[in-house]
C-alpha cells in the first residue's frame, strides 16, 4: 500500500475545500465601472459630511446616492483643479443621468436601515464601512463583508434587538 498517495489525496482535498470557502467569500463584483472617477478623499478633505451626498443616511433605510442635481449644487461652477472634474458637467450637457453602481448588496431576506443605525444607534459610518478618507478613486469593490454572526455580535454587545424579525423580512 502506498502511503504517499493517500497523503497527497488528503492534502489536495483539504486545500480544495479551503479554496472553495475562500471563493465563496468573494462577491462577484467583476469589472464594475462607476460613471465618474469621483474621489471620496477629496470631498472629505473639503470637510464634507457623508450625509451631504448620501442623503437618506439619517432618515431612511437606504443611504441613497447623489443624483446629478445634488452634484450640481456645488459643481455648477468648476471646483478644484482635477482634470476629471468637468466631467460631471458634461453629464448635464449630454442630458445623461448619473447612475452609480451600488456595490454593497443585502441578501434578499435582510432588512437594514441606515436610519436605525446612524440616527437611533448613533453609529459612525466607519463602524461598518471602511475609512473613505483614504479612498481616492470611485470604489469598485464592496467594502462590507458582514455575515449574520457579525450583525448578531454587534447587536448583542449594544443590547439591540435580537428578534429575527428585527432584521429579516
Amino acid at each position, binding site marked *: *500500500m502506498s*502511503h504517499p498517495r*493517500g*497523503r497527497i*489525496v*488528503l492534502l489536495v*482535498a*483539504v486545500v480544495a*475545500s*479551503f479554496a*472553495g*470557502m475562500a471563493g*465563496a*467569500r468573494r462577491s462577484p463584483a467583476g469589472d464594475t465601472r462607476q460613471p465618474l472617477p469621483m474621489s471620496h478623499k477629496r470631498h472629505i478633505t473639503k470637510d464634507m459630511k457623508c450625509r451631504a451626498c448620501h442623503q*437618506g443616511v439619517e432618515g*431612511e*433605510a*437606504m*443611504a*441613497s*446616492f447623489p*443624483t446629478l442635481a445634488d452634484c450640481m449644487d456645488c459643481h455648477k461652477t468648476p471646483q478644484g483643479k482635477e482634470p476629471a472634474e468637468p466631467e460631471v458637467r458634461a453629464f448635464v450637457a449630454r442630458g445623461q*443621468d448619473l*447612475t*452609480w*453602481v*451600488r456595490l454593497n448588496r443585502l*441578501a*434578499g*431576506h435582510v432588512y437594514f436601515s441606515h436610519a436605525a443605525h446612524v440616527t437611533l444607534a448613533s453609529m459612525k459610518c466607519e463602524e461598518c464601512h471602511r475609512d473613505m478618507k483614504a479612498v481616492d478613486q470611485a470604489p469598485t469593490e464592496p467594502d462590507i463583508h458582514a*455575515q449574520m454572526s457579525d450583525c448578531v455580535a454587534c447587536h448583542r454587545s449594544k443590547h439591540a434587538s435580537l428578534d429575527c424579525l428585527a432584521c429579516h423580512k
Partner: protein
Amino acid sequence: MRRFGRRELLGGAALAGAAVLGCGQKKDPYRIDKPAVPRVPGWHSGEERWVLSTCALCDAGCGIKVRVVEGRAVKIEGNPEHPVNRGGLCSRGQAALQSLYHPERVGSPLRRMGSRGEGQWKPISWDEAIGEVVAKLAKLRASGHPERLVLIDGESGTFSRDLWARFLLAFGSPNHIGLGSTRAAGVRLANLYTQGRYGLPAYDLARGRVLLAMGTDLLESSGQAMYFWRAASTRRPRVLCVSPRRPGCRFDEWIPIAPGGYGALALSLAHVLVRDSLIDRDFVRDHVFGFSAWQDPLAGEQRGLEETVRVDYGPDKTKEVTDIPVAMVERLAHMLARQGSAVAVSDGSATAASNGLATAMAISALNALLGNLKRAGGVRLPVDVGVADWDTPTADVVAAAGNAAPRIDGAGTAACPLGRGRVQAVPGAITSAKPYPVEALFLHSTDPLAGLPGRQAWIAALHQVPLVVSFSPWLDDSARLADLVLPDRLPLEAWEVVRVASGAGEPVLGLRQPVVAPLHDTRQAGDVIVALAGGLGGSIARSVPWKCYQDAVTVRLQGWLSSLEDDDAPADVQSLLSEMKEAGGWWRESADAEAGPSELPTPSGKFEIGSQVIAARMAKAPDTAKESQGWPCKGLPPWELPRFSGDPLQFPLHLVPYRPAQFVENGGRFLSWLSELPLVSGDPWPLRAEINPADAARFGLADGDQVLVESPIGSCRAVAQLSDGVGVGVVAMALGKAGVVDLVVLDEDRWSGALAWQGTRVRVRKVS
C-alpha cells in the same frame, strides 16, 4: 492485502472535519432566482413616492394612491381623502397593478396578416397605423357615408368618451354606442322618466335605517357598491336583499325571488302600503305626480298608481310571479313604512329582464310612496360636477347628413322607443346591413365577444366589417378578429379626467395621471383621436384642434373653471391641475341632503310615478308600432310578466348570471388575483354552476360533479356547486369567466333596450 492503517483513519477523519468546516462556511444557502429588487435603471436611488390617481376598474371612480419605488408601481391603496372611498379599496382596484405588468400586453400597434382571426400579426409604427385608419375614414367621408363608422365605447364618464363623441359629431356618425344597455340601463332610465335626470340615483345609506336591495349588484359589485361599503363603516342600515341568489356580501335577510319578479314584488309592496295607509300622504300629495288618475293632453285618461296596484297587484296575485308568500310581502311593507328612512334600491341585476324599465320604475315609485326623496336616509338625485363640454364642434355638410342618419342600434326608433342604446343589436344590424352597411368598427375599452351574449353573431359581424380597429391593451377575443390593434395605455400610464357619479352625492372630478412611465409603445385613445382628427383635416381638425389629449383636457377644464362661481376655486387651470394631481381629483363637500324636496326637472316638477315624458313620446309614436308592441299607452309603469327564452319543459331551470365581487367588466379574467379570490371555496378557477340541493336531487347531481349547462343557444361545462344560497329552480353562474355569456339568449326590454341577462332557461346534466 490492503491493511487498514492509522494513517487512513486519521486522513479520513481530517477529511470529514474539513467537509464539516466547509459546510459551516457555506454562505447564503437561501437563494431565490428572483431578487426582491430587480436591477432596473435608477434602482440605486432608493427613491419612493406615492402618486394619486383614480381607479378605472369600475364606474365607482375611487381615489387611489400608488406606491412607486424606483419607477415601478408596487402597491395600490385607497386615497384616504377621497370622498368616494375614503381610503378603502376593493379587490378590483388593487388588481389594476397586475394589468399594468401583464405579460400579454400588446407592445405596439399590430396589423393583421393573413385572414381574419388567423392570429398572424405584424407590429407597425403608430404613424403607419394612424395613416391606415385615416385613409379609410377619409374614404368614408368622401363617399358621403360617415355614419358607416361605428364606435362601441365601454367607458363612461371619462373625458376620452366625451372626446370620442365630439370626434364622431364632427366626423358625422351618430353611432357612438355605449354599453349602458348591458348594465343598469333600466335604473338610469327610470331615474330619467320619474325624476328627470339620467343616471344612477344616490342613496343616503349612512343615515338610512333599512335598505331593501332588489338584486345583488348594488351590494356586491356595481360601481355603487363602494359607497354602500363606506356607509357600512359608520352605521350599516338593515339590509334586506331580494334576489334569486343569496348575496356574497353582508346582509341581514335574504328573500329569494323568482327571476324577473322584482317589479311585481315592488307593486304588491305598494299595494300593501296603499291598502294599509302606510304611505307618506303629505309627500305624495305635494311632490308626486301620477298617484291618482290624471288626464294626459295627448294620451287621454290615465289610471293612477293607486288604482293600478289596488286592482292588479295584491300580494296574493303576484305570488305566482315572485314566489314570495303574502305574509312576507306584508311584513316587508310594514317594515319599510315603520322605519322612517327606508329605501328601496334596484340595480343592474334586478332590471336585467324583459320588463327591466318597468321594474326599475316600480321600485323607484316605492321610494316616492314612502316619501324618501331628498331627506335624511333617502334617495337623492344623481349629481354631476357639471363640467361643461368643449365649445360646440363644427359639423360640415357631410357630417350633418351623417349625423341625421338613424342609429345602427335603433335607439330612439320604434325598436327601442325609450332607451338610449342597445349594443346587443349591433351585430344583427351589421350582418343584415340594415339600415346601412358598416364600413368601420372601433372597439374602445370593450371586448364584446367575451363580455356580451351572442358570440357567434359578433364573430359573423366582425368578419363582415372591412375595418375593425381594437384599442384593447391585450389581444382579447375581439381584438383577435380585428384588422388593427392600437393598444391603449393602461389607466396607470395615462392622463384622464373622470366625471364620477358618486353614490354619496358629492360632485367629484377624478384625475388619472401617469404613475409610471409607459411600459410599451402604446398610445392613449385620446391621443389617437387627436391624431385621427389631424389626419382627416378640415372641419374635423378644427373641432379637435389640440396637439395632444392632455391639451384637450386642459382646455376643457379651463372653460369649466371660468364658469365656476366658487370663491375657493383655483385661480387658473395650471393651479387647478396641480391641485388635482396632489389630491387625485377635485370635489366639493357633500351637497346639502336635508333640504326638502325641491322642483325636479320633470314636466310636472314632481316625482312622476306616471311619466308624462313616456306618455307623450308614446302618443307621438306611429300607431302601428303601438299596436304591434301592445303598448298600453299609459305613463304608468307598464309592468308585464317577464319573458324567458327556452321551453320550460326542456329547459326547466332559470339561468341567473351574476356579477361577483371581483367582476371586472373588461379584461378582469386576465387578472389572476381576481380569478383566485377565495370567495368561493376550493379551486377558484373552474366555472361553477350553483344550484339548490333540491334541484340537484331532482337532476341527480352531486357537489363537485362535472356538469353541462345547456341553454337553447349554447352550452358550457361547469362544476356543480350545491348551495342553499340559490333559490329553487335557479342556476346561478358568475360572469367574468368564459362560457357563461354564451348561454344567454339575446333578448331585451323592448321599451328601454335593456339586455335581459336573466331571461334564459337552461338545463343541467351530469357529464363525465
